[in-house]
């Protein structure tokens, strides 16, 4: 007979529990399921639930040379060297176009799969990479500090009892955005190596080999209370955010919990990665590779709600032109390949991509054909279900309207978060963001 517990087990993450999961773990999951059924809240971890893919542009992307104003004298006056030639720009409207390298964005735009939110920022902007990254990742006011990330709070509020893989950061580090009261989310770089290799170089399930004792070792956590507020997993990627070392739980508890997460998710992820293949080609770049892996994991039905990726190198203080050209080319090409692959895999309707960067750059170029740290900048959403086109107000470049040489924001980044939480992840943004932010119609 199907009890609610066994039903949840077989649907929510049943497919992910391979036969190699030891009995104690199955018991652990049973316990979790019981917890959930008691609360009568089904966590949003089914195979059909929406997925958010966040791409961090680390270093501060120059928004003005990404979405370029056309026929604007202030722009060319402020940027005699870096100002882009109007004829090279990928014109979208009479007054605005994309950087020439953004053929990917142009394609997404033309297909109605790209939303551009203009002039995104926050009050009292901070020009520190590290502080501003923390602000974006924790979704706090710029004068307030938090050691819990906005995605972590989403996990706490809407995915209680979900598996560790509810959040997957591609790379060696887990971002502060994932840090939660009840830490969840894993970092993953290469599914083939995401496992414990036994002495003979093979699998880890012989009875006498060290592998089975490794499993026993990592079982030490199973009778500890789950959801113990141990140290969260926030850390540095390229700009992973400032991790607070003072949150509760001993380092040993934290290590034990992470070892258990690693072992369980390693089984799931290898199983999926071995079964699923991408359906269309990707360009050669690290970001494209990371997105290729994400597409496989999505198609494989990993119960992940948020994937997190990072593209570094946007801190263009000197000789910006070539570097920025290369970065945006990689970004646009990787995103368009990802959206195509998802379409071919039959997954595109449940995936939304969002980019962000800790700040834009100064309107005026500096003396080294580069730009210094700035403030507001555009942000992009891609997918088949975005409400494509322009959101928010265009930036005003008139020097009298600038604040210390920086663009003023007109849309708070937390309005974008609130809209995504409400319209895409279908959860109440208030407990996650602490207060109400006006939303934009970002999802069709």
């Amino acid at each position, binding site marked *: 007979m199907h009890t609610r517990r066994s039903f949840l087990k077989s649907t929510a993450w049943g497919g992910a529990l391979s036969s190699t999961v030891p009995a104690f773990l199955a018991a652990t999951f049973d316990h979790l399921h019981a917890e959930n059924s008691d609360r009568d809240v089904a966590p949003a971890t089914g195979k059909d639930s929406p997925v958010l893919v966040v791409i961090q542009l680390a270093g501060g992307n120059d928004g003005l040379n990404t979405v370029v104003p056309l026929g604007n004298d202030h722009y060319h006056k402020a940027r005699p060297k870096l100002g882009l030639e109007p004829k090279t720009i990928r014109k979208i409207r009479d007054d605005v176009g994309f950087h020439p390298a953004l053929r990917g964005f142009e394609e997404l735009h033309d297909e109605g799969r790209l939303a551009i939110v203009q002039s995104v920022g926050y009050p009292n902007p901070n020009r520190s990479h590290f502080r501003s990254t923390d602000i974006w990742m924790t979704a706090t006011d710029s004068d307030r500090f938090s050691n819990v990330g906005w995605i972590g709070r989403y996990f706490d509020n809407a995915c209680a009892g979900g598996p560790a893989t509810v959040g997957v950061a591609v790379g*060696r*580090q887990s971002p502060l955005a994932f840090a939660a009261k009840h830490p969840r989310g894993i970092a993953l770089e290469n599914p083939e190596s*995401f496992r414990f290799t036994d*002495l003979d*170089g093979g699998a880890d399930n012989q009875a006498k080999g*060290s592998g089975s004792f490794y499993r026993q070792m990592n079982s030490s956590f199973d009778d500890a209370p789950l959801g113990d507020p141990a140290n969260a997993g926030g850390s540095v990627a390229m700009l992973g955010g400032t991790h607070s*070392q003072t949150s509760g739980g001993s380092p040993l508890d934290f290590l034990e919990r992470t*070892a258990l*997460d*690693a072992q369980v998710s390693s089984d799931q992820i290898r199983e999926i990665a071995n079964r699923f293949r991408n359906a269309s080609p990707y360009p050669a770049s690290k970001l494209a590779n990371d997105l290729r892996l994400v597409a496989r994991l999505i198609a494989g039905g990993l119960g992940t709600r948020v994937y997190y990726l990072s593209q570094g190198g946007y801190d263009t203080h000197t000789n910006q032109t070539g570097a920025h050209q290369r970065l945006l080319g990689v970004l646009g090409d990787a995103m368009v390949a990802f959206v195509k692959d998802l379409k071919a895999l039959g997954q595109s309707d449940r995936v939304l991509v969002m980019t962000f960067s800790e700040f834009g750059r100064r309107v005026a170029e500096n003396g080294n054909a580069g730009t210094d740290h700035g403030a507001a900048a555009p942000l992009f959403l891609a997918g088949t279900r975005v409400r494509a086109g322009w959101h928010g107000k265009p930036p005003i470049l008139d020097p009298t309207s600038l604040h210390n040489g920086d663009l003023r924001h007109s849309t708070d980044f937390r309005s974008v978060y609130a809209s995504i939480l409400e319209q895409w992840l279908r959860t109440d943004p208030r407990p996650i963001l602490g207060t109400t932010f006006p939303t934009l119609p970002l999802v069709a």
Partner: protein
Amino acid sequence: MLAELPASRWNPAAATHLLNRAGFGGTADEVSELARKPAREAVRSLVAKGTAVNPQKPPSWAHPDPDRAARLKAFREASPQERERLQREQRQTQRARMVELEGWWLDRMVRGADPLREKLTLFWHGHFATSAVKVRDAYLMWRQNDLFRRHGLGPWRTLLREVTLDPAMLIWLDQAQSRPPKPNENYARELMELFVLGEGRFSERDVTELARSLTGWTLDRLRQEPIYRPRLHDPGVKSVLGAEGRLGLDDILDVLTSRPDSDQWITGKLWTFFAGTAPGAELQQSLARCFKEQGRTIGPFLETLLISEAFHAPEVVGQRIKSPTELLVMACRQLGRPLPAPAVCANSLRLLGQDLFHPPNVKGWEGGVAWINANTLLNRHNLALLLVTGENPLPTTPRKGTPSAPRTRRGRPAATAPVDLAELLPKTDRTSAERILEILNNRFLDARISAKSRKVLGDYLSAQADLDSQELLGLLRLTLCLPEYQLC
């Protein structure tokens, strides 16, 4: 002042802690030798090793390039295709040298005569985090590394001046290209935010004014030396952190290092690195006061830190997560094995999240619990296999152009030799499971094994039909995967 560790608590366990944190761990003999000295003398012997001779000579290329002028000329005169070829060659050379440099430094940590200096160099590398990705010159990266070694224990102001004019730093944070009237803000900002004061302790105006003050200092690219070019200096009046005048580099260093914020910032950083936890408010005040009273010199301050009662408190001892570099170096020392080949070490450390000479950003590595996630922990467990058996289960994804690790016929990357079991666990010591576990507990876990871990290892031993080398290697590997092994 900071309370000193009472003499009654100075013992082999305290000496073990000291050797773990002030260096890369000690053998049983080193521990008992240190513990026999009075505590103050013991600490001093670690901090003042400076004159001891290291077995390692600098890499053969660690000097200014004598053919640089000719090389630059050839490059200027080359055809576009030729230029591309030269560039490619140069990149390959530099990348190979970076791998060599990483191996060279790790070797100093494992075998060098002055482990504290290497540990402190590792701290400064994280504090003044500079990446070869942008500097792209192994000689300059070596030079900065050596600067930390030479000045790391000296006066704080001197170190800051050296770092400010260090060629790798001049390139990394764009000071080399900063010119009036629009100076580059990159170095000025990070100098205050990350190196000396901390975020929120200066204004945006201080950033631009400080950048103006530093103009004139740039890089002589031919001689690979810093140079002051008066005509590139903005001679006007500036105002930085309340000081006003025709400020230049030395005025700025005086202004910065005499601020109480600066005493707090750098001592807090040093404490966090060596103790593994951030200092509380009261301790922070004491640390800053000590530093100021000791003339803001790092060596004497470190002595005070290492001998303080707070540094030997139970919440500090054995509670710090080893960085990947510490894990690798300490494991090699404990296992009595040589370091794997430089390319293997470089690959391993990158996978564990500490790519030496390539920090993720100018803030360096976050450290602490940020070292640990599902991915890096699995890689730690697989590094343990590599170090114990010599087999390399880690994926080799070398940075483009770097020499990859050698491979065996089976196609698996061959790392290195297995540990010498006869040396590590002599047959005469393999009398009982209890005895074996005792040896491992003392040697690898500073006698801090948990009951659960002891049971896992015991169960493993009793499941084996006999205890031959394969089984013992398995046991060693499991020991290195224990959660308590990640701490020291």
